[in-house]
């Protein structure tokens, strides 16, 4: 990075630290904060969408649809996250490769399962083994977003399902009295009003999602916790910048990051809550008026 960094063994003090903190590996560490934030900001809306669809399905008048929604909520919420992340991702990846194998290599005669091995033709590999590293990274990142969205979508579905039920029945009856169809009443009356009931649950989920990001490493993505562990670990003379075990400093840094991030989230969520309760005949709105008055 700096011109004086060419021979690390001669450096001392501040210069050594400046060079140390700007090595390629540290740069990758700083970038991984972006990876984590990116994951959060992509996953949250997708999970919310899954949750909304799940809740709608669970309320459906069409029985198989209702069953589907309820099974999704029950099964995904019941399976431990780690088991889900280990099993589901490998299964999903192999499923995609198997479909591509069927489509792209119809002439392939060898079986896909050979003992322990899972073998598809080279053209069906996802991504191709010749693809540059960033494609591999993007692919595993997409798998991660999808998996996180399914898991958190199930919890969000449950929260939204409850929130939809919490909207006072007279509101819906009034809508019907005005001649709105079932669909119109759902979109115009229920959905705008349910958010205030859903928000506490959803904000919990957001906080849990923030803290669940270290699970990324299970999916082969190098997140901030991986780098903190890797960079902080004991370094012998085999490395250009040998140092003792510094993990405690790196993890302190992560602690500060997570605390600041959850604090900032809390501020934003409080603002949203104030907006949503505005003008509503709920305790939250009147309480808020007293506090801000």
């Amino acid at each position: 990075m700096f011109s004086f960094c060419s021979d690390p063994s001669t450096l001392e003090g501040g210069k050594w630290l400046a060079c140390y903190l700007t090595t390629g590996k540290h740069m990758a560490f700083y970038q991984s904060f972006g990876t984590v934030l990116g994951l959060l900001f992509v996953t949250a809306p997708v999970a919310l969408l899954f949750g909304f669809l799940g809740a709608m399905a669970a309320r459906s008048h069409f029985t198989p649809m209702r069953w589907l929604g309820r099974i999704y909520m029950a099964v995904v919420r019941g399976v431990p996250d780690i088991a889900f992340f280990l099993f589901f991702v490998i299964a999903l990846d192999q499923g995609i490769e198997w479909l591509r194998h069927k489509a792209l290599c119809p002439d392939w005669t060898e079986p896909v399962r050979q003992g322990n091995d899972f073998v598809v033709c080279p053209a069906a590999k996802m991504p191709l083994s010749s693809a540059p590293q960033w494609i591999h990274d993007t692919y595993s990142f997409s798998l991660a977003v999808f998996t996180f969205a399914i898991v958190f979508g199930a919890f969000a579905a449950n929260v939204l399902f409850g929130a939809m039920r919490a909207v006072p029945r007279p509101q819906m009856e009034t809508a019907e009295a005005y001649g709105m169809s079932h669909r119109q009443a759902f979109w115009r009356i229920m959905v705008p009003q349910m958010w205030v009931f859903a928000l506490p649950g959803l904000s919990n989920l957001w906080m849990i999602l923030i803290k669940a990001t270290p699970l990324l490493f299970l999916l082969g993505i190098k997140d901030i916790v991986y780098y903190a562990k890797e960079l902080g670990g004991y370094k012998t003379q085999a490395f250009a910048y040998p140092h003792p075990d510094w993990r405690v400093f790196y993890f302190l840094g992560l602690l500060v990051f997570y605390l600041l991030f959850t604090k900032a989230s809390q501020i934003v969520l409080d603002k949203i809550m104030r907006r949503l309760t505005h003008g509503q005949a709920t305790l939250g709105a009147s309480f808020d008026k007293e506090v801000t008055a």
Partner: protein
Amino acid sequence: MKKLMLTTAALAFSASFATAGETIRMGTEGAYPPYNFVNDAGEVDGFERELGDELCKRAELTCTWVTNDWDSIIPNLVSGNYDTIIAGMSITPERDQVIDFTEAYLPPAPSAYMALSENVDLKGGVIAAQTGTIQANYVANSGATVVEFATADETIAAVKNGEADAVLADKDYLSPIVAESGGTFVFVGDDIPIGGGVGMGIRESDGELKAKFNKAIESMKADGSLGTMTKKWFGEDASTY
């Protein structure tokens, strides 16, 4: 404009299909210096990086490097996320049931106990070892209590923190740590001769690739370059082929 972009994207896509040939993905742990580690530039480095690149050159293969957790390094090989394991993995009968090994590129090397002082109880104490290693297996059968960690680095930290009395690991891994600790760490007891040499792990269905690497390893043994490389990374008195 949109159409143009789509065409370019389609072209780029088909081009990447056309070049889908022999790229071998080399899987390693990247946390076991001097065998393999991720250097300060963020690249895979170490004895196995240099060896792997040379083997690929001799076998006329294009290789790329991937790191993977030690814990799941075998499952990810058999499910096809990469094509080889080159991560200081000892050839054992248990592993050989799941994957295949090339012939050894490092002869059987001893393991050793490392602790803070010489008077620790190796038979009845608490010994740290990395999960899924021959050392963890050995400690479990020795009567001592084994505590397992995901990385080798954490086993060292455990001894330093007093969480474990000693650590059992490859002596080649521990030697630089003992030498640079300024007397904090010492070797305890005799060397333990376990392990059957270190080889590359290959899927059982991938006989062709195994043959290619075997040929390359043999040629490096024959012209002495493997011995030179081993001495460069493990010191002059390392046992070599």
